[in-house]
């Protein structure tokens, strides 16, 4: 069994990925900042685009529109040297509760996911929970296969970039 002491010491910078069921997965991480700051990084396009797509993937942002309010829409367009056409990600915010909760629905296809992000502040730190639910297990498998391809070898580059930028 894991050691409880070790667990709490390592908890800050640990990203935990779990597959909750055939349709959904959850990612959690604790950030050393109040919820309003972490929320800000998710809800302002100029900040969101600085971390969402690891830079080493080689994608560049063509446009980023985020009308962040319940019922508002988002549209992010990326280009990549390997793609003929830019890729658009778009959908609707189903719920926006500042500093607490964000729910959006991807509308690129009828197999789009519903994403729920919650921000739980405790003692100046924020537990962030990212939950994504797909309509079918095939849709989840496909989405995860796409997002995970070819990334790991680029992470060293990303680390360098982050270290240089700090």
């Amino acid at each position, binding site marked *: *069994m*894991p050691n409880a002491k070790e*667990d709490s010491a390592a*908890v800050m*910078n640990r*990203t*935990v*990925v*779990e*597959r*909750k*069921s*055939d349709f959904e*997965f959850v*990612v*959690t*991480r604790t*950030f*050393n*900042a109040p919820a309003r*700051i*972490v929320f*800000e*990084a998710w809800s302002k396009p100029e*900040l969101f685009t*600085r*971390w*969402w797509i*690891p830079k080493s993937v080689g994608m560049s942002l063509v446009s980023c529109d985020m009308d962040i309010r319940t019922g508002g829409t988002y549209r992010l367009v990326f280009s990549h040297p390997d793609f003929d056409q830019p890729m658009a990600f778009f959908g609707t915010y189903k719920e926006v509760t500042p500093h607490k909760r964000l729910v959006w629905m991807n509308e690129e296809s009828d197999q789009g996911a519903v994403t729920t992000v919650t921000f739980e502040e405790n003692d100046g730190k924020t537990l*962030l*929970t*990212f939950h994504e639910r797909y309509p079918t*297990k095939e849709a989840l*498998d496909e989405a*995860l*296969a796409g*997002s*995970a*391809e070819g*990334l*790991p070898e680029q*992470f060293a580059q*990303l*680390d360098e970039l*982050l270290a240089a*930028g*700090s």
Partner: protein
Amino acid sequence: MPRASLSLRTISIRSVVRLQITDARSTVNHMVHYQARLDATFAALSDVTRRGVLEQLGASDASITDLAEKFHMTLTGMKKHVSILEQAGLVTTEKVGRTRTCKLGLRRLEEEAAWIEKHRQLWSARFDALDELVEQLKRKEKTNAQRKRR
């Protein structure tokens, strides 16, 4: 910390299995095939007794009778659990004489571990970048507050 026991157990099993992963890349190339099978894997891992059986088999091979005794179960009950683990490829069994011996089916566990690890890497990279940004925002806010006070 809200974490399903699945990941706790998976991590401990993974540490045993990690050494067995020799070529993660070829595993990824087989993703299409194993994704369908992963569903069976996750279903098999969703039960506390079955995770216990895997840990037990990680320590040593055991017969179904041994496992039934250890987990205070009937033979029939344990046979069902072992059968689910076997279908998921997590356990292999072999009948020698009148005894059915169970052992870990490591190949499937490797794939399972690789799947989790791959996604953890992606999200780690993403959240490391977010962490960096959050620190910057925090510093900025602090500086602004100090300026106001002056």
